[in-house]
């Protein structure tokens, strides 16, 4: 049985993380920005699992479950805010949200 080496898994996690960062930076739609943040969080989770199996400890997987729970809580608030934004603006473009000059 061959096992994936830690370097390869970390590389994959890093790649996923970069995709997520690029998504948050380049997308204008809030929905897709939230999606990209989820990809970043899952990349971090993957890195934790790789680290946990590298050291033969359950800690990595424990952390992943916490990350899952946190991501779910965050998405539920995020989606309700997005609904409210759509209600107020009839659009999900982040550029429409600049009532405050920032």
């Amino acid at each position, binding site marked *: 049985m061959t096992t994936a080496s830690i370097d390869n898994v970390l590389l994959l996690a890093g790649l996923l993380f970069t995709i997520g960062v690029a998504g948050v930076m380049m997308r204008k739609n809030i929905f897709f920005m939230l999606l990209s943040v989820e990809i970043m*969080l899952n990349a*971090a*989770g993957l*890195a934790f699992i790789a680290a946990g199996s590298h050291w033969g400890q359950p800690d990595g997987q424990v*952390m992943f479950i916490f990350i899952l729970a946190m991501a779910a809580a965050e998405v539920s608030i995020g989606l309700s805010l997005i609904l409210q934004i759509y209600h107020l603006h009839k659009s999900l473009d982040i550029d429409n949200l600049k009532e405050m000059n920032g």
Partner: protein
Amino acid sequence: MAPNDFLALLPLLILSIAAVLVMMLIVANQSHRVIQMASLFLFLTSFLSLFLIPVTLPYAIAPLLLIDSFGVYMMALIVFSALVVNIISYVYFEGKEEGPKEYYVLLFLCTLGACILAVSQHFVSLFLGLEILTIGLYALIAYLRSRQRAIEAGIKYLILAAFSSAFLLFGMALIYVQTGSMSFSLIAHSLALETDLPALFLLGIGMMMVGIGFKLAIVPFHMWAADVYQGAPLPVTAFIATASKGGVLAVTFRFLTSIDGLRFHVLSASLVVLAMVSILLGNILALQQKNLKRLLAYSSIAHFGYLLVAFVPNSPLSLPAMSFYLSAYLISTLAAFGIMAVRSDGTEEAEELASYTSLFWQSPLQASILGLAMLSLAGIPLTVGFTGKFYLLAAAIQNNYWALALVLVLGSILGIYYYLRVINSLLKGGTTTGALPKTAFPYFLVLSLVMLSLLALFILGLGVFPESLIGYLKDLQMGGTTSVY
């Protein structure tokens, strides 16, 4: 868990039980007034229980938490800030379109998260505390959900906070890969023999710094601060500026000190740079602000630069200097936001500088408190802010960080300009354009003003006689019993 663990955790347990109790009160359909009084009582109980922790400190609840005198002091600051925020919330939220009751549940949860941060010594508790705090804050910021600005601030904070949490987590994962442990003391143990940081560890701690930089709003991760401060309801802004940032600062300080990270040149040099840009840019951006909330946002960026000045030199004075300055900052900021909340009415917030013109002739008490808070933030002698800055300088110079000390002084000089501008408009003669003073909720208005006057007394008292607090802070201990995992 041993019975003693529950005793040591009493303040945190009270906060979590309080959230449930307030929820029960909401179900029982109690009035805003009852809920406000109940949560005031619960905050007070939690605050007092901090001084009555009946176990010997430091007390480790292995592997996650370590309750030491530094942690207890930080928790005291956080719960005290939440208490003040709680008091000013009644006057602010009564008469708003949104039912304010669930607000108190979220306030308890956010306080709990910040307190967990202050005593955590493990990545898991750091992460949990941080997320309890931030997820509560998303809802609090967007609490007045029919207002466009609140929603805009809420979604901006949500995206950026989650983005920075992902950086923090990835950084933690890389450090875990390198060291094989997530507890601060074991990470320190595996680093003890290194003279240079391993590449993976350096990458990890760099990503963690990005995450923490976002939460503390230090330059260059400060973009969200002004908008979120402006869009959030005033008491929530006060909470973000004080309790939430205080908790994150405490855990950053604990992490960097317990792994002794500042002996690595890369880390201390990059923190020096971050501190310098935060001080300069924060003060420069604040110069032209006409909105008091945005002004305080930029000023808080600068103040967290000052706080970094305390802990980068890693001298024996670092811990007392940082704790003292943080206390000074919290007291002054709370007083300023408190006055703004008291002067806001049902539809509009008193956030424009113009609405404070000639306030002194209309309401001398409120104007004096706001003026004192500004003087203290500017660091004028006889206020607590001056003494705080003095200790920061002492901490920086003790280990020969002259450049940092110079930037600190330069930043303070810049700061005086815009703080005095606020005082200038308070004293200006002529008719006021601001809102009329409120008379609708006399008891709570009086309670808020008494609390804010108490803060003003603290500003003056600790400015003139700082010895007692300094003496107490010098005895603060961080760390102690090492956890075995």
